[in-house]
């Protein structure tokens, strides 16, 4: 019997152990529900006002996976929410916490509701009681003694406006008091005055009226006396209601005007076409967010015109102005790219074109600029060909399209490897020693200590007699070592098609920041002492012997 009992117990233990092990092995049936429950309390970080449970975005899916993983790891819902708060702040909670400053969000609406109800009840009660007292006052006014109101009813002639006699002054005051009392009645009946105020003011006016009436009676039939001094008495009168009402009108008018102005500005701002995805409804009116203004557009036009006239410093200034207000303007970046090409700074130009294309991926001018750099400077023929083909498919038939097709035909086929030096294009002018200037560049021994090892050397050629404007040819050598043998030829010409011939002035600059458009303190410069040199001359030696201050 005992053995049988033990066997049964053992069997039950085995069954229990099996059932619990099965429980652990199978996925928790409510895991998805619990994940969804927590996810529904977390705000999606890429879509507004959707929980990560409801959002179809990839980020929401990834966040849901994190929730599920942490649940599986045994974390409590609060711990998981705290984890997301530690990463994104309380913003991530769809239900803000009921502590700290967030408590205000919970409490404030109820406080406002209660205060609103109390205020509404108070106003309604006041309004009802005023109605009642107004009715009572009207009935009281009608039952007033005839003696009190005699001064009002007495029919007296209106004085002339230019009559300064004492009687005329008293009659003027009487008219004014009559007006005041009728306004007082009106204000009281329309609920603008409390009972106490009404009675006090009315009594005051009545008293003044009675006194005035007595003074009128006391006057001789045709008084010729000077007007009595009543000014001090006038000053004690209650404030002129007409004036207060005028002030109210003025304030109301000013408020309406400001409201209209604000509405006009905001409405025109909000319905204007957006310049970019970053452009907000209000533009820079309240947030300081940059949006292309008329001034920016004018600067862009000015820059383009200066570029067309080849006034590059002016164009640079204008485009910098555009980029200061609209840092992603693709046109300005493209033009800056072209200017940098002109100055022989291919890397900078490539950056500028990439910035332009990041905003406008199909901007023809930026595509053209980038493709030309890849082709001419970087010798990345495959990438250049790809961009030219893309450009060709976008540009309508015409001169520009023919030019693109011509350059595309020039690009060597099969030269797809980057940094592979390609043979010159069939139509490109071939540099020969007779079309070059060569020599050696050295540094003045006194300035050797001033040499920056990371500086870039620019060898600049200008036609003899041209002191300003873009150079004819530029060669840039990064981190040069001296003495340095150089050659300058047709391949360094900036404007395609310009011949590298005639007499040329050669100058060199060792530029610390590598930017050809700026000359900074500490840059070393030098020039050919026998300037100008004829193209084809050898041994045009130059010494870097000056320091820019």
């Amino acid at each position, binding site marked *: 019997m005992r053995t049988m009992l033990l066997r049964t117990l053992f069997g039950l233990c085995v069954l229990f152990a099996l059932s619990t092990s099965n429980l652990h092995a199978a996925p928790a049936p409510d895991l998805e529900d619990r994940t969804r429950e927590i996810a529904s309390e977390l705000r999606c*970080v*890429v879509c*507004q006002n959707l929980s990560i449970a409801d959002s179809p975005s990839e980020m929401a899916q990834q966040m849901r996976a994190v929730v599920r993983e942490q649940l599986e790891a045994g974390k409590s819902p609060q711990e998981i929410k705290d984890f997301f708060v*530690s990463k994104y702040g309380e913003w991530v909670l769809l239900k803000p916490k009921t502590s700290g400053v967030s408590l205000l969000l919970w409490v404030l609406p109820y406080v406002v509701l209660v205060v609103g109800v109390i205020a509404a009840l108070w106003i309604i009660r006041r309004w009802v009681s005023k109605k009642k007292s107004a009715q009572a006052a009207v009935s009281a006014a009608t039952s007033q003694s005839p003696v009190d109101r005699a001064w009002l009813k007495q029919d007296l002639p209106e004085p002339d406006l230019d009559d300064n006699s004492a009687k005329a002054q008293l009659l003027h005051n009487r008219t004014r008091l009559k007006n005041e009392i009728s306004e007082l009645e009106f204000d009281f009946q329309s609920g603008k005055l409390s009972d106490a105020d009404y009675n006090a003011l009315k009594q005051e006016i009545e008293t003044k009226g009675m006194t005035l009436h007595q003074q009128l009676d006391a006057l001789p039939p045709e008084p010729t006396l000077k007007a009595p001094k009543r000014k001090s008495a006038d000053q004690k009168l209650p404030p002129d209601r007409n004036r207060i009402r005028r002030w109210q009108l003025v304030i109301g008018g000013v408020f309406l005007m400001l409201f209209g102005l604000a509405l006009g500005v905001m409405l025109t701002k909000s319905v204007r076409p957006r310049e970019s995805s970053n452009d907000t409804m209000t533009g820079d009116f309240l947030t300081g967010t940059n949006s292309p203004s008329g001034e920016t557009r004018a600067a862009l036009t000015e820059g383009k015109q200066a570029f067309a006239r080849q006034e590059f410093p002016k164009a640079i200034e204008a485009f910098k102005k555009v980029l200061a207000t609209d840092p992603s303007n693709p046109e300005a970046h493209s033009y800056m790219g072209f200017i940098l090409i002109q100055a022989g700074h291919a890397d900078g130009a490539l950056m500028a074109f990439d910035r332009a294309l990041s905003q406008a991926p199909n901007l023809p001018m930026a595509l053209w600029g980038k493709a030309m750099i890849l082709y001419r400077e970087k010798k990345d023929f495959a990438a250049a060909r790809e961009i030219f083909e893309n450009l060709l498919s976008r540009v309508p038939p015409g001169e520009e399209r023919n030019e693109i097709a011509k350059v595309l035909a020039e690009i060597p086929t099969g030269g797809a490897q980057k940094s592979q030096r390609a043979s010159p294009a069939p139509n490109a002018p071939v540099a020969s020693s007779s079309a070059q200037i060569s020599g050696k560049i050295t540094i003045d021994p006194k300035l050797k200590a001033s040499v920056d090892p990371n500086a870039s050397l620019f060898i600049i050629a200008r036609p003899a007699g041209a002191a300003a404007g873009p150079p004819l040819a530029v060669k840039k050598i990064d981190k040069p070592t001296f003495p340095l043998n150089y050659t300058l030829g047709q391949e360094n010409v900036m404007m395609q098609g310009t011949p590298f011939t005639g007499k040329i002035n050669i100058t060199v600059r060792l530029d610390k920041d590598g930017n050809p458009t700026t000359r900074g303190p500490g840059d070393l410069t030098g020039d050919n002492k026998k300037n100008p040199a004829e193209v084809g001359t050898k041994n045009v030696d130059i010494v870097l012997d000056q320091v820019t201050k």
Partner: protein
Amino acid sequence: MPWRRLAIIAFIIGPILALLAFGFTRDARYITSPLIAKFATPFTITLFDGRKLTLDDLRGKAVFLNFWASWCPPCRAEARDLEAAWQKLKDKNMVFLGIALQDTDQNALEFLKEFNVTYLNGKDEAGKIAVDYGTWGIPESFFIDPQGRITYKHVGAIRAALVMAKLEEAAKGIVSAQEGRGDYQPIR
């Protein structure tokens, strides 16, 4: 009496208008990070060249951590700047690490090739690193000091000069409380 009434109206309407004006100055999409001046969450990432790298391996160096994607225009805009900054800083005790988000290997590699990116780059496969760093816009850059503390965060495209300046600060452990902002777009 009328002045009292005006004062009461102004007292009620004033705060409402002030609240509206404050609302206009805010970008509802922007999430301010609570991670600045805190220790960066450790992670392990598989680089595109197959090596594994953990953040702890970089302890003792100033780290520039950049989340990017090949489909994101502002990432394209900053790519050459980042490489230029890396070329200038690579000999110092500093590391650049790019983390591609929500991208395919092929597109990410083409991007790196197009912009000649030479610094370390890997892919956040499950998006966990992005969540750990509270990422919501792209590109996003974090500057981490040699002790592993986040010193600065920049949402959006960043210029080479700023990368160099902030990394120098990170190397010295200087924390910038204010986040930087450039052109960005929400992640997908």
